């Protein structure tokens, strides 16, 4: 085994409590980082779901020509504020109704396509445009009524829902970011303190190494390896714990959010997402270890 690895591992073995505290703090930090990342991913998906589903439905009058409909559809399609525009005919509206009432077929038998208005459904690129767009569409001669997706309870409710979601996401990001920042700072400090303690216990050895011509990098080697080991173990433990908890909660989350895919339902995609999180955490952790190691060694050599 390389002499630096040997020195690093013997240091870990000789001070198990220091090693344990470093790994514990790092595990907790990266557990929180993983959970927070997953929460942000889920809230983004949730927000995206509400933002991209048809938000505005313009119910068309019965007596209009297909040319008028095409003209309005074309005009809306060219509007930068509008996206995903779709024409829903009376027959399609009936089909949607039938699907929504499969539990009670009697309700579907009582209706004919003629009682459903044809409509143009579309989303907005930004919900801030909602009020203006709705007003403009309402003023169109071919439009009977305009509304937001019915099952969310009308114009104000949908906007409020999305705004609330946005606010929550913003605070999760902000609060989470600050919290993770504090946790990372705490981990970094613990890492530097533990490495400095290790250097203090190795002071005699470092002095001898200096005298026999060891470069700063040679002295730094085992210290960096030790810090990297703590970080790698800490990241992995924190990540695996968060992964297990997510897997455990997945069925309940899927059932609760129903058609909203807040987490990948495909196993490969889920593993891919967690793989990316692990990769990013390792990069962050290794950067912490390198900076911490360099800082501690520089301080220790300066003190000498």
């Amino acid at each position: 085994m390389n002499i630096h690895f040997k020195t690093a591992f013997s240091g870990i073995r000789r001070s198990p409590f220091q090693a344990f505290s470093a790994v514990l703090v790092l595990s907790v930090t990266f557990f929180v980082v993983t959970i927070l990342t997953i929460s942000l991913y889920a809230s983004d998906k949730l927000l995206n779901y509400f933002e991209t589903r048809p938000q505005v439905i313009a119910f068309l009058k019965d007596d209009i020509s297909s040319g008028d409909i095409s003209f309005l559809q074309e005009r809306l399609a060219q509007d930068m504020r509008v996206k995903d525009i779709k024409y829903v005919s009376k027959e399609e509206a009936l089909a949607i109704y039938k699907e929504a009432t499969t539990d009670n077929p009697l309700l579907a038998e009582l209706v004919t396509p003629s009682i459903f208005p044809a409509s143009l459904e579309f989303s907005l690129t930004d919900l801030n445009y909602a009020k203006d767009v709705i007003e403009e569409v309402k003023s169109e001669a071919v439009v009977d009524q305009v509304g937001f997706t019915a099952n969310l309870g009308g114009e104000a409710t949908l906007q409020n829902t999305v705004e609330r979601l946005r606010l929550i996401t913003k605070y999760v990001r902000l609060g989470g970011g600050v919290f993770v920042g504090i946790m990372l700072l705490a981990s970094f400090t613990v890492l530097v303190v533990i490495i400095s303690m290790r250097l203090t216990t190795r002071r005699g050895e470092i002095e001898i190494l200096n005298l026999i011509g060891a470069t700063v990098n040679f002295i730094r080697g085992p210290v960096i390896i030790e810090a990297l080991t703590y970080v790698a173990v800490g990241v992995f433990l924190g990540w695996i714990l968060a992964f297990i908890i997510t897997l455990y909660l997945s069925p309940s989350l899927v059932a609760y959010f129903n058609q909203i895919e807040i987490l990948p339902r495909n196993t490969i995609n889920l593993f891919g997402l967690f793989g990316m999180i692990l990769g990013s955490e390792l990069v962050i952790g290794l950067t912490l270890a390198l900076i911490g190691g360099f800082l501690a060694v520089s301080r220790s050599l300066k003190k000498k």
Partner: protein
Amino acid sequence: MDENLVSWFVMVKFENVSKKFGNIIALSDITFEVEDGEFVFITGPSGSGKTTLLRLLMRELLPDHGKIIVGKQDIVKLEGKEVPFYRQGMGVVFQDFKVLPERTVRENVEVALAVINIPQKEWISRVDHVLKLVGLMERAELFPSQLSGGEIQRVSLARALVVNPKIIIADEPTGNLDWETATQIMDLFEKINKEGKTIFVASHHEAIMKKMGKRVVKLKGGKLVK
């Protein structure tokens, strides 16, 4: 004689070197030369400046005045990052041994090879060679706490030798040893010197110096008296 040729043969040159610690004069205007392959005893009573002179040569200290030329280079002018590479060219045997207590005899010697980046596959043969030379082959897997004073001193010597240095510096290498062990250690130095190494030994062991019959640089109160 050509000046370059002169400097080639003059391995170490102290030129008007002075060093003070506060008001205490450790060395005062020291000038002497040591040729390549020479064996020199630095002697004098306690506090005469022997250790300071060796520490200056190791570039552990900087002089207040003067030059210390090693090969062709004034080591006083070396930058901090160049010092480790300078030290890698010399072997040092310390009065207090300075062996690593948590490493075996073999590991203590291996560390010196690791420091100068010798590939690991060469370690066994080189370490075995020096351990045989200093008579510690049987003790290779023991820790310093399991060795006698003389054996620990030999570990220190083996570590100094394994890097195949041009200069060997030994600070009171026989200070804590009995006559028989001290003689063995000095015989080893002589053997190494015959291989062409330049050797500096700080000692106040008159009998040893007399027995060895080598050049003596004598210090007193920080001044060169012989």
